[in-house]
């Protein structure tokens, strides 16, 4: 008995020793900063002079700040338009790439490649593609319009947007850029498509289900946990959206604040403007927004997500 006890106690120390890197990091870089951040959010603090306590005044002025609502709107826009679009697109790609054909792995690699591109390089490249007069995208649109014109379908001409120069089109431009790098999400869908038991499809075949019915009643339920996971990651990612806009707008969120996303607004308040108390309050509001959204998604998913074998 004493031996066993000793064994457990030894294991306890060993376990603690192994997780020590995380535990120390947690205390220094998470727990202590959380306390600091709560306090700072109640202060005026410019990073030089000692913080001065002002109660909830930061929160009050955030809720009166037009830029706050603007950044919230921009972020929700890109989440509610961009996340569903990229989920549908990457799922469609995964289904298309889940065939046994010659050269399929080459196709998979090619479609995965964009998400390897360093974000700064990708943003520079797409800024050039979105160039209103000389960019590749508008060259294609103009060419397409010419073709329509000569076919006598001039009425169907597409708009030739100013993309990142136009407040109306800047966010759609970022969503298009996002669709180019759905490779990571696609790969997760592909892996889970390959895990769907064949017997389920065979059973559906016997019952006389057509292609669409099989996708709707077999594939989709089986993939629902992964779709749910990707949706949650997409929501969280929307609130972290930073580098692309910072590079493409030189940190300004222009034109006309149309690309001032939540993370960019927070960063700009904290660093160029040194309003660190205000930015800390923004960070806590962000925490409660993501917490609330995640809870809602979980609530919905409890009814909609099917966990096979769980």
């Amino acid at each position, binding site marked *: 008995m004493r031996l066993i006890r000793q064994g457990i106690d030894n294991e*306890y120390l060993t376990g603690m*020793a192994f997780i020590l890197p995380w535990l120390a*990091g947690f205390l220094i870089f*998470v727990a202590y900063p959380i306390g600091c951040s709560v306090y700072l959010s109640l202060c005026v603090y410019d990073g030089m002079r000692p913080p001065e306590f002002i109660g909830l005044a930061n929160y009050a002025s955030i809720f009166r700040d037009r830029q706050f609502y603007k950044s919230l709107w921009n972020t929700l826009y890109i989440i509610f338009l961009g996340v569903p679009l990229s989920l549908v697109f990457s799922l469609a790609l995964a289904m298309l790439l889940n065939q046994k054909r010659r050269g399929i792995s080459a*196709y998979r690699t090619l479609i995965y490649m964009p998400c390897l591109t360093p974000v700064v390089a990708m943003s520079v490249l797409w800024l050039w593609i979105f160039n209103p007069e000389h960019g*590749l995208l508008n060259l294609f649109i103009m060419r397409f319009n010419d073709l329509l014109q000569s076919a006598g379908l001039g009425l169907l001409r597409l708009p030739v947007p100013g993309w990142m120069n136009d407040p109306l089109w800047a966010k759609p431009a970022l969503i298009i850029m996002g669709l180019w790098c759905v490779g990571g999400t696609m790969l997760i869908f592909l892996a889970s498509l390959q895990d769907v038991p064949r017997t389920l499809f065979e059973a559906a075949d016997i019952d006389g289900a057509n292609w669409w019915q099989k996708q709707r009643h077999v594939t989709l339920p089986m993939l629902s946990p992964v779709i749910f996971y990707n949706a949650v990651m997409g929501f969280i990612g929307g609130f972290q959206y930073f580098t692309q806009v910072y590079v493409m707008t030189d940190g300004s969120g222009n034109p006309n604040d149309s690309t001032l996303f939540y993370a960019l607004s927070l960063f700009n308040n904290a660093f160029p403007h040194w309003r660190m108390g205000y930015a800390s309050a923004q960070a806590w509001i962000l925490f409660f927004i993501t917490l609330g959204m995640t809870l809602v998604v979980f609530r919905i998913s409890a009814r909609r997500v099917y966990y096979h074998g769980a």
Partner: protein
Amino acid sequence: MTKANAISLTRSLAAHAVLLALSAAFALPFIWLVITSLKPPRQIFEFPPRWIPDPIQWSNYREAIQAFPFIDYTINTLFVTLSGTFATVASSALVAYGFAVVRWRWSNLFFLVMLSTIMLPGQVTAIPVFIIFKQLGWIGSYRPLVIPAFFANVFFVFLLMQFFRTIPRDLVDAARIDGCSHLDIFWRIMLRLSKPALAVVMFFSFTGGWNDFMGPLMYLNDDRMYTLSLGLQQFMAQHSAEWHLLMAGSTLMILPIVALFFFLQRTFIEGISLTGLKA
């Protein structure tokens, strides 16, 4: 040819046509990147655009390398990225072993705490962490970019834990009975058997460091110390119309990652399907 054969041939052709068209759409931005990077400046704004630069101007690359000190920035980036990768992988593997293999009281409690930190947006801790580094006098050095990597990355810990759990427990128990210490088991059994998972973690960590922009933006202020991400962004802020140089610089920044991916591809794909995760 029978009717069934004809149908399957048509299907196969249609499938390849769709796949080819999609791949072309995905590859087009890369092609445009390389084309622009090889154009003489006056051909960049030509209308209609030229698909083959004339002459092919390789000197754009030489000019880009000189215009922003590309080689210095590459060395800086490699230093930050490689030391960060080594530190993260080593510390995350230790922590994953502590949670997944060692059995001890309260491990579940600590695990729950670790799990809950995922919900916390990075912005909440970023400002106090910045202040800590400022008080230590580390702003303007690489320390804020490298030192935190020694304290494990929660995401990588999960990934490695999942992998460690697939390794038969009997191996560990047998080694324990033979008097092997946990450190020995970690080093001689777990790490040896986890190469695909370690490759995935290394790759994610390397690309994460190579691509990191916000870290260098917050902590580096001397332009000789910039990394490639920050250097390229600053170069664009100053020379926004010189697309041939910007594209050459971007190409040079993308190439090492793509090369690494192809080099690791086999291990990488294996590791991804084993752990079911993404960047």
